C-alpha cells in the first residue's frame, strides 16, 4: 500500500511541478514580457536613466506596500496607510519649520506613524475590532488631523536643503536617495521576513494562528508587530514624499492605499501563491511602475493607460488563478 501511494505520487508530481512553476512565475512572466515589449517598442525605455527613474517613481509606493505586506503576513489589513503617509509628510516639515533639527523632526514623524500603528493594534488585538474597521476609522480620524494641523494648506518654505536632498538628491549623481532607501528597505525586509525567526513567526501567525499559538509563538504580539510596521513604513514613505515634493501635502498619500493594495495583491499571486511576500510585493510595485512609465513613454493617453493597466493585471492574475485557488484574506 505504501508502494502504491509512492508510485501514484510520483505520477502526480510532474504536471504538478509544472503547475507550481506556472504559479510562481506567471505574473513575473507578464512583467518580463512587458519589459521586453517596452524595450523593443520604444528606444528610450531601456536606458540607465530611465530604469533609475522607474525605481525612483515607485519608491514611495513600494515602501508603503512593503509595510502593508507585514500586515498581510499577519493577516491584518491596514486601510489607514495613505493617511499615515500624509501625517508623516506634514509633521516633518511642520516640525522643521518650527525650528526642530532635522533628525528630531524625522524621529517625530516616524514616532507619530508608529503611534498610529500601536493605536490601531490596541483596537485590533486588544479590543478585537476587525482591522478593516479599525483602520478605516483611523483613516477618517487621520484625515481630519492632517487637515487640521496643516490648516488644509501645503507646507512650503523653511524646509532645510539637507532634508530636501533626501527626496531629490542622488548618490554619486546616479541613484536617487528615494530609490536607494527603497532598495535598502526591500532588501532588509526581505531578509527579516525570509531569514529571521521574526519573519518566520509573523508568517506563521498569518498562516495558521492556532498552530502558531500551539507552537508557543506569541500570536497577539506578532499581530501588533504587523500593524505597527505597516504604519511605520507608511511614515517613512511620507517623509521621503515630503522631501521629494519639497512640501508637506495634507492629502499627499491618499492614492497609496489602493495602489499599495494592488501591488500586494499582484505579489500574492507569485512566488508563494496566496501569501504576501516582500519580493512579490516589490515585483507588484515594479509591474505598476513599469506600466506607468512604459505607457507614458509610448505616449499613451492617461485614460487608455488606466484601461490597459487593468487589463494587464487581470491577465497576469488569471493565469495563476486557473491553477491555484487563491485566498487573499
Amino acid at each position: 500500500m505504501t508502494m502504491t501511494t509512492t508510485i501514484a505520487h510520483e505520477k502526480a508530481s510532474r504536471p504538478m511541478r509544472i503547475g507550481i512553476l506556472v504559479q510562481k512565475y506567471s505574473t513575473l512572466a507578464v512583467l518580463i514580457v512587458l519589459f521586453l515589449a517596452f524595450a523593443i517598442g520604444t528606444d528610450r525605455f531601456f536606458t540607465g536613466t530611465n530604469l533609475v527613474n522607474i525605481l525612483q517613481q515607485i519608491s514611495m509606493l513600494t515602501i508603503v506596500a512593503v509595510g502593508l505586506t507585514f500586515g498581510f503576513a499577519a493577516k491584518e489589513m491596514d486601510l489607514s496607510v495613505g493617511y499615515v503617509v500624509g501625517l508623516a509628510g506634514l509633521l516633518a516639515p511642520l516640525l522643521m519649520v518650527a525650528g526642530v533639527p532635522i533628525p528630531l523632526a524625522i524621529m517625530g514623524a516616524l514616532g507619530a506613524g508608529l503611534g498610529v500603528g500601536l493605536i490601531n493594534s490596541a483596537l485590533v488585538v486588544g479590543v478585537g475590532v476587525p482591522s478593516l474597521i479599525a483602520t478605516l476609522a483611523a483613516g477618517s480620524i487621520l484625515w481630519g488631523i492632517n487637515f487640521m494641523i496643516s490648516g488644509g494648506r501645503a507646507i512650503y518654505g523653511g524646509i532645510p536643503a539637507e532634508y530636501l536632498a533626501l527626496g531629490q538628491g542622488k548618490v554619486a549623481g546616479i541613484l536617487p536617495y528615494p530609490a536607494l532607501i527603497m532598495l535598502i528597505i526591500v532588501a532588509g525586509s526581505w531578509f527579516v521576513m525570509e531569514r529571521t525567526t521574526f519573519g518566520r513567526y509573523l508568517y506563521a501567525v498569518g498562516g495558521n494562528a492556532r498552530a502558531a499559538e500551539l507552537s508557543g509563538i506569541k500570536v497577539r504580539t506578532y499581530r501588533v508587530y504587523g500593524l505597527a510596521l505597516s504604519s511605520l513604513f507608511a511614515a517613512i514613505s511620507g517623509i521621503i514624499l515630503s522631501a521629494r515634493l519639497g512640501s508637506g501635502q495634507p492629502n499627499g498619500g491618499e492614492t497609496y492605499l489602493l495602489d499599495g493594495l494592488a501591488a500586494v495583491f499582484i505579489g500574492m499571486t507569485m512566488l508563494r501563491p496566496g501569501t504576501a511576500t516582500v519580493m512579490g510585493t516589490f515585483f507588484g510595485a515594479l509591474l505598476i511602475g513599469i506600466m506607468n512609465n512604459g505607457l507614458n513613454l509610448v505616449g499613451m493617453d492617461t485614460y487608455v493607460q488606466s484601461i490597459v493597466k487593468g487589463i494587464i493585471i487581470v491577465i497576469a492574475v488569471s493565469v495563476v488563478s486557473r491553477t491555484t485557488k487563491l485566498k487573499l484574506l
Partner: protein
Amino acid sequence: MSIVLDNITKQWPGTLALDGVSIEIVEGRVHGIVGENGAGKTTLVSILSGAVQPTAGTLNMARQPVAFENPAAAVANGVSLVSQEGSLVPHLTGAENICLGFEPVKSRFFINRREVQRQAENLAKQWFPETMIALDRKVDELPYADQKVIEILRALHSRPKVLILDEPTATLPAKEKQSLWTLIRQLSDAGMAVVLISHFLQEVIDLCDEITVLQDGRRVSHLSNVEHDVSERQLIDLMLNRGQAGNQDRLLDGALKERNLADGAEIVVDIKGWQGARFLMDGLEVRSGEIVGLIGLTGSGHFEFAQSLFEPSLATAGEYRFKSKDVGRASVRDMKRRGAALIPDHRMINAMIGDWTVRENMSMAGIQETSLRPFGVVQNGRERAETQRLIKRLNIKTSSTETKIVELSGGNKQKVSVAKWQFASEGKYKLFVFLEPTEGVDVGAKREIHDLILSLAERGAAVIVASSDLLEVAHVADRVVAFRNGHAADQIARRDFSEAVFINAIAGVTQ
C-alpha cells in the same frame, strides 16, 4: 428500489481510496459499512451522495445507470447524506438549516417561515420526541450534539429513499443515541434504505441487516444476513485480518504484559481537583517514562482535559504541578518553556500551516534553537540538516525537505507534527500530550507512530495519549483513564485491558 454501486474505484492524488468496491443498497434494510480509519468508507458514501466523482465504476438505480454530478442530483434522486464533518450554515437557525434547499414557499419564492418552523418542529417531534432543541436559535449557539440532530433532521426533510449516516453517533450523548437507534429501525421498517457507518461495532451488529467490511479501499467481506450471532470479535477479525501484517496490533485479552517503570521516576504531572468547563479530574499523577491513555466517547471531556495540561487556561479550578512546580495559569508559551509539548488533533487546523514546506512546519516550534542570536537569523543549512535528520529518524516519506506539507499523507503529516517537538530540542520536553495521534493515518504509519510514542516514554518523557481508537490506547498505554460525561470515571490497569472493559468504562453500564 435499490442502488447498486458497481466496481467503484477512486484515486485521490497520492491515494487509492477505493479499489473496485461493489455494494448494493436495498430498500427497507440497514446496511452497515465498517473498516479502519482511512479504509475508504467516507469516500464511498461521498460518491453515493454525489459529493465526489468516482475514477471508475458505475452507479445503478433501479437497474438504470445514473450519475450524480453533484449533491443536488443525488438529493433529487432520493439520496441524503449526514456527513462525518458536519456541515450547517452557522448563522441560520436550526429550523432554517433543516429546510435549507427545500423551503416551503408561498407564491413560489417567498419562504413560509411559520411553515419552516412547523415542519422542522414536526420532524423533530416525530423522530426525536425525547429531545428538546431550540430550533429557532442560530445553530452556532447550540451544543454540538444538537447540531448533529439538526443535520440528521435536515437529511430526513427531503424524505429520502436512501439515508446515509457517516459516523452519526460519535458525537451523540446517550439519550439522542437511543433516539437515533429507534429512528433507524423505524425508517427501515417504513421501507427506507439506511447506510450506517460507525466505529461502535455492537451498535452496527444490533442495527444492521447486512454489513460490508472495507479494508484499504477494498471490500474484504460482506455479511448478507446479520443475525445476532455475529460477535464483535468476529467483526474485528474481519476488519483487521490482513494476512501477515498488523496482527500484533490486535487487542488480545489477557495477553498484555505490564511494562516495568523505573522506581522513583520523577512525577511530571501532578493534578488535584483539576476542572474546566467540560471536564473534572479529581487526581492524577504521571511519572517520567509512563504512558497514560485517556478514553471516552466524543464530548466526554478527555480531549479537553488532555489539552488543558498544555493550555492550563482551559481549566477554571484545581491544582496542577508540573515537575513539582505549580503551574497556575501559565500560558502555552510558559508550558512549552517548562518542557511540555502538545501534538494536537485535527493537525491541519491545529498544528500545520498548509502552504508551508515540511522544513518550515518542522522547525516552527524550535527554529530559534538553530538560529543565530541575538537577531534570530535563520541558518538555512542547520535548519535543513536538522529537518533531514528528523525525516530519517522518524522515517517520514517525503520527496524532500522542501515538499509542501499538504502533499504528505496523513501519517507522514502526523510524524512531522511529532517531529516538530524534537527539532533541535532532543530531550528538552518532559511531557508529551497526544490527541488522536493516528487520526486518518494508515496502518503502517500508525505502527511507527505508536513506536515513536513508546520510544519517547522509554527516553524518560511522561506521555498522555487521548484517543478514540481503543486498540491504539491498549497498545501503547501503561494505564488508562476512562472519561464519562466530563468526569474521569475509571482507571484501568494494563493487565485488565480488553475492549469489553474499555467500552463498559466509557459507556457506563449499558443503557
